């Protein structure tokens, strides 16, 4: 049986050979692959660390992903070097859509990675890009120079060790939202929820790249379904317009690997 797809969706894993590993901070590294994968910003791939697990990762460029070491699989990933290989399934999911002339990227932590990729594409399309990015502390800051190259940049840190002191929302006050056609959001759920709540009146103009527990990544197992509509985040997302996130589980709870309901922190 040839590898392929039912219903034209995903394919079986291909071999992704690592070309270069870039250390972005203590806990964040970018893995560049020898072959690009033709993704659009906001799309992801299922990354198989052989013998460990398979996890979803956003693209931070056509040939790369930027990873925060948080669990068993991501830590195993950090043991790999140039020349090592991973199994890759993708690109998967819908990705962001570019709308308007002036856009605002709002990212928290490693969530800035798909936004930097989107910013590159937006600049190529002649759009004006402003970035608002937040981190816990100065040593956590990643991809700052790449985003600075795209346009205006506002940096926040929780402890004030770099940029504006406070959460990303503290930086939001420095942006004239009336001037912005579309807001693109990626980061910890409660940070995104805070931004969405502060901008509820423009929720139809916010695209959020969100995270749920993905297993199959082809829209059949149901582990990532989002209340109350039952959106299959792996297949119909991971980018979802904020107005569809207002009255459901987003920002309130999420399901874990067993399907049990838990906190949406982190």
């Amino acid at each position, binding site marked *: *049986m*040839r590898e392929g797809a039912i219903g034209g969706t995903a394919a079986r894993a291909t071999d992704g050979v690592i070309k270069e590993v870039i250390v972005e901070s203590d806990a964040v590294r970018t893995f560049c692959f020898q072959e690009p994968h033709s993704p659009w910003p906001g799309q992801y791939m299922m990354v198989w660390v052989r013998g460990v697990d*398979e996890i979803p990762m956003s693209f931070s460029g056509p040939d790369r992903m930027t990873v925060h070491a948080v669990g068993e699989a991501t830590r195993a990933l950090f043991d790999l070097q140039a020349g090592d290989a991973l*199994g890759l399934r993708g690109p998967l999911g819908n990705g962001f859509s570019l709308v308007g002339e002036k856009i605002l990227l709002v990212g928290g932590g490693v969530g800035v990675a798909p936004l930097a990729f989107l910013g590159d594409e937006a600049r190529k399309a002649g759009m004006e890009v402003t970035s608002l990015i937040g981190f816990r502390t100065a040593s956590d800051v990643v991809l700052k120079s790449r985003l600075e190259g795209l346009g205006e940049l506002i940096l926040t840190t929780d402890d004030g060790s770099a940029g504006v002191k406070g959460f990303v929302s503290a930086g939001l006050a420095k942006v004239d939202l009336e001037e912005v056609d579309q807001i693109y959001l990626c980061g910890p759920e409660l940070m995104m929820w805070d931004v969405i709540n502060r901008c509820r009146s423009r929720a139809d103009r916010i695209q959020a790249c969100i995270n749920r527990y993905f*297993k199959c990544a082809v829209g*059949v*197992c149901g582990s990532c379904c989002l209340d109350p509509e039952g959106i299959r985040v792996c297949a119909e997302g991971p980018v979802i317009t904020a107005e569809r996130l207002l009255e459901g589980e987003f920002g309130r709870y999420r*399901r874990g690997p*067993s399907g049990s309901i838990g906190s949406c922190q982190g």
Partner: protein
Amino acid sequence: MRSLSGNVGGLDLQIPVILAAGILGTTGASLRRAALAGAGAVVTKSVGLLPRDGHPGPTVVVLEDGLINAMGLPNPSFRGFQEEIDVGRTGPAPVVASIFGSGSEEFAEVARSLKADAFELNLSCPHAEGLGAEIGCQPDNVEQITRAVKRSVDVPVWVKLTPNVSDIRALGLAAQEGGADAVVAINTLRAMAIDIQSGYPILGNSFGGLSGPAIKPVAVKAVYDLSGVLEIPVIGVGGISDWQDAVEMMMAGASAVQVGTALMGGYGVFQEIARGIASHLDRKGWTMEELVGLARRRVA
């Protein structure tokens, strides 16, 4: 469209096309969404006595003509699941709770603790140790477990059978003897895929179960064999992607069909299949009764 409604295995179905177990049935919202999209009934993901995270990834291998999965029965336990069933039941179709356990007592305890429109006993998952097909391949176990659940609940009980045996008819007869209201055939076929770059089995569990178009001929034969010996209805499942597949499965003897892997193509599949069956009956001038089991009558 002509009506396809009828009673199958103790449930009144608007259309004889059902969401299969293990597909999107993890949450109440997704069950309701399938019902709103036109499914005649929706079967939940299997739930058991204790929470399980399931197998490590990869949990699926996508092939051109099928899907190999080894989810590993992830579920929040029956305690966490009643709320999801209740949300699912706010939709327009009956909700069938798929349940699993290690033996009669566990099955009966889970069934007694849940409120649903019917139960489907998972005696057929091919990749969970000490569960599913590992116990469901023995006719004695199938009969005892079916009887234990039937004694514990007052709603219909369906039994989903494994094809990974030499003669599936023995399992069907055991389910019927235990008091089942219907059998559901087939669950996935044991299968494996190996990554040729590294030599690793691709699935986190090393092996899993094959579903999708690749297994349809196997399912058609199993349904044909079962319907030849059983008095209770057979619900056909395995590789049904369009109305032609559903008609074929019904001709083999299925009173209704379930759809799983084809949901990869979206929720429209229920309505498409129902419309296709209805038009085909119109074109041929057949009734549903004439369609179900037609293949056996042709060669009788």
